[in-house]
């Protein structure tokens, strides 16, 4: 598992935002911003405040409140669009066109990807400068999956790694336009508008890099699977209980996907697999209510504690 939750804003998006905003400073832009499904918002806002630039964030109303509060705390201005991520995105695009603003996923996007690819560098570095057999990646727009591929190819060109890496992607079933295209053998993406998933950070119905993600998956002999909310929650629970890792649904889809790939025999027994865990569970604390017991509330008395222990059959 490659957990990437100890960055300044607790998701892999810090990698992308930090490079993009450094470039915005170099280009002498007046302000920065992004369209976000949640995680990019906090990352952009944090790096903008460090850079001393105003920050404008466009997000669909469905984004988790915790993620918005997080971004707001850095002083960002947030515009909530009553619609999908794709609708927030087109508003952000128009905003970028009409003002001298660097929107990290729109007009300074090439640099965003340069940041994301460092995740591939770090995986190989941590394995002692070699590549794993297979990397499993959460997909929303498909950008991260392609960035990982780019990073691996660069290391290979430099002679720092050799061997081929299978690259696979996972999407939540309630928003899986890339996986549908893969399954149906299509080379193009059919955007979806009716989105329903607990993995809100992956809720992009019209994935800009979907076609490229499909090509990367095919080229590397990877695969693509979708997972249900129930399967995602199971992965979040198991990561916490078995590994001590508290991961948000969007970041945990890879473990649910891995399970499915094993069941469907899409994985070889001897494969060395790296699953990316891209965002912290602290960003979506409300979701654990779906599977954890409530805490005990007792009066400060040993009698009450004993009663509780009896109920729990711990005594």
């Amino acid at each position, binding site marked *: 598992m490659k957990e990437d939750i100890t960055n300044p804003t607790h998701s892999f998006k810090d990698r992308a935002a930090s490079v993009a905003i450094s470039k915005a400073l170099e280009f002498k832009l007046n302000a920065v911003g992004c369209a976000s499904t*949640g995680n990019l918002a906090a990352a952009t806002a944090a790096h903008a405040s460090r850079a001393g630039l105003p920050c404008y964030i466009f997000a669909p109303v469905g984004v988790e409140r915790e993620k918005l509060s997080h971004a707001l705390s850095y002083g960002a201005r947030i515009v909530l669009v009553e619609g999908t991520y794709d609708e927030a995105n087109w508003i952000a695009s128009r905003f970028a066109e009409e003002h001298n603003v660097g929107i990290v996923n729109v007009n300074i996007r090439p640099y965003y990807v340069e940041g994301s690819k460092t995740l591939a560098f770090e995986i190989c570095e941590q394995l002692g400068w070699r590549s794993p057999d297979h990397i499993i990646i959460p997909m*929303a727009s498909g950008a991260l999956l392609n960035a990982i591929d780019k990073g691996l190819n660069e290391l290979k060109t430099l002679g720092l790694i050799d061997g081929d890496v299978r690259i696979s992607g996972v999407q939540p079933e309630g928003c899986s336009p890339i996986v549908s295209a893969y399954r149906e053998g299509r080379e*193009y993406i059919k955007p979806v508008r009716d989105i329903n998933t607990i993995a809100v950070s*992956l809720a992009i119905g019209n994935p800009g890099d979907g*076609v490229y993600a499909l090509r990367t998956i095919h080229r590397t002999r990877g695969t693509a699977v979708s997972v249900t909310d129930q399967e995602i929650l199971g992965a979040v629970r198991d990561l916490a209980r078995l590994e001590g890792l508290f991961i948000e649904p969007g970041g945990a889809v890879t473990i649910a996907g891995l399970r499915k790939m094993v069941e469907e025999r899409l994985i070889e027994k001897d494969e060395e697999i790296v699953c990316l865990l891209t965002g912290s569970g602290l960003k979506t604390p409300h979701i654990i209510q779906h599977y954890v017991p409530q805490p005990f509330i007792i009066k400060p008395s040993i009698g009450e504690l004993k009663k509780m222990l009896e109920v729990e059959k711990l005594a």
Partner: protein
Amino acid sequence: MPKVKLVLPSILACSGDKVREIEASTIRDVVEYLCSLRPDIKSRIISHDGEINTFLNFYVNGVNAYFIKGVETELKDGDEVSVIPALGGG
């Protein structure tokens, strides 16, 4: 033909105006106009089956034409068509 307001991203407007008025009765006419502006990227605008490629999105008064009637989406006088390149996330 109805006169519509076309809003182009810089990469398609090249050095011309980003906002222009063109005559178009469907999105197909807008697409043809774009293909005449940039014949080099025609295959990126239209897919092999004649549908809009999702590399570009056509928003008609704020609604993605893909979800209306695709290239057959009808336009009327005064409609605003915004052309937005595909965007990553998120």
